[in-house]
């Protein structure tokens, strides 16, 4: 029989083990698990200012900023994509800086000023980036768009403040506004529809208007 040092169980052993664990699973969980192995949820208060309104929340400490916004404040414009900080769909501005709200606990933002896509503009008075995304077709399905726009607000602010990027030829000089710079600075926001070129056009238009 073939054996594997890393997986000492043979296929047959595994089948036997699975069968016996299937039988064991009928036993109530409480009988098999000591009660102290299942810690109870812990709650904590936090005050957040979101889009200019103060909110006093009492949250399970595990609640991410993203879930606090979506599930507790019902601001569903901010999207949950990967929930692991890899896609950027949950990007919001905290004290004016872009962050991924899925990799931050709500309780870590006591007193912070949070701006979500709902706080940037309204259908009647959209933010210039919202208008530009519509005009340039900077999306197809739209799921990544709130994160893209919040990220672009942060990225343009970073560019204006002169923060260097991987695309900057000279890290001491004020960075240039270029498609290469914008693509690099927006690389934390994935768009599976592939609207990237139009996203860059939309952001460029707004950046040039402000310059």
């Amino acid at each position: 029989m073939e054996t594997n040092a890393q997986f000492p169980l043979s296929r047959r052993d595994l089948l036997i083990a699975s069968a016996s664990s299937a039988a064991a699973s009928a036993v109530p969980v409480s009988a098999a698990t000591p009660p102290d192995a299942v810690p109870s949820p812990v709650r904590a208060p936090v005050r957040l200012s979101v889009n200019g309104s103060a909110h006093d929340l009492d949250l399970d400490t595990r609640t991410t900023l993203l879930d606090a916004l979506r599930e507790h404040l019902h601001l569903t414009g901010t999207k949950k994509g990967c929930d692991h900080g890899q896609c950027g769909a949950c990007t919001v501005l905290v004290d004016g800086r872009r962050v991924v709200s899925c990799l931050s606990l709500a309780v870590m933002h006591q007193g912070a000023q949070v701006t979500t896509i709902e706080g940037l503009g309204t259908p009647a008075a959209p933010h210039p980036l919202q208008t530009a995304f519509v005009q340039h077709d900077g999306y197809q399905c739209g799921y990544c768009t709130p994160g893209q726009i919040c990220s672009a607000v942060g990225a343009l602010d970073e560019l204006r403040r002169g923060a260097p990027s991987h695309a900057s030829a000279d890290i001491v000089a004020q960075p240039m506004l270029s498609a290469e710079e914008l693509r690099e600075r927006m690389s934390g926001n994935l768009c599976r529809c592939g609207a990237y070129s139009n996203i860059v056009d939309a952001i460029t238009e707004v950046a040039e208007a402000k310059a």
Partner: protein
Amino acid sequence: MKPFSYERVTSPAQAAAAVASQPGAKFIAGGTNLLDLMKLQIEAPAHLVDVNGIGMDTLEPTPQGGLRIGALVRNSDLAAHPRVRRDYGVLTRALVAGASGQLRNMATTGGNLLQRTRCPYFYDTNTPCNKRQPGSGCSALGGFSRQLAVIGGSAECIATHPSDMAVAMRVLDASVETVRADGATRVIPIADFHRLPGNTPHIETALQPDELITAVTLPAPVGGTHVYRKVRDRASYAFALVSVAAIVQRDGTGRVALGGVAPRPWRVEAAEAALPQGAQAVAERLLAGARPTHENAFKLPLAERTLAAALSQARS
């Protein structure tokens, strides 16, 4: 995520004391790595001590002409600081080569040093991993090891350290300042900060559980041309397959360290004597004793070529 209690602290000593007094407690700063691992139950702290309110978030010149970087300085602020851009360009270059704009706004200097490997088996809780579960075995040996270490690993673990910043810190001879619950402070040279896995791959740094990083100090600038060159699977927002941090002087001498190839930033000071002879001579000494897997043997020629490109960039 497992439930945990949570507290905010306002000083480094209070933070260390809080972690020491609670079993299973951990510090949290940016949270970009810890929270990710908690969601996967790879980390399951019973208590979190939030150190974001302890200060330690500024950069100050040192009396020796260097720079003391508070542990809570965010990666984006460190990269953009005028003195870092001017005098420690390899550090700015390494920082902006890592993660995304959002993550750099969150991640801290101390946390960046402490981030854990992105080995796929460390992340896959259904497979053995000596780092995640000591004694369970290493799935990467003989497994999917394209991203993993070619040198410095052991029969127990071939995980790589994922940081770009740490590679620059290594070439800059940075020191890590810490404090413990009893108030004791110490300074750990970056060369001694990250441990090789040996037969204890779950122990990754020289830190004690209640020991908090308060600052990272850079010696006075050494001049030269600073280069950080990173090779990865996509142009941005990906971990290094191989990276090179280099500081090259006009006379051809200098310092180099590699990222993406070892469990810690890989620098061999003795190899640097070969810098005037070129990349091949340096790479031979730097990677002597490498034990790549079938899947990551490409990193050896890639490291040499990336080094050659970095040296050529520095001299142009």
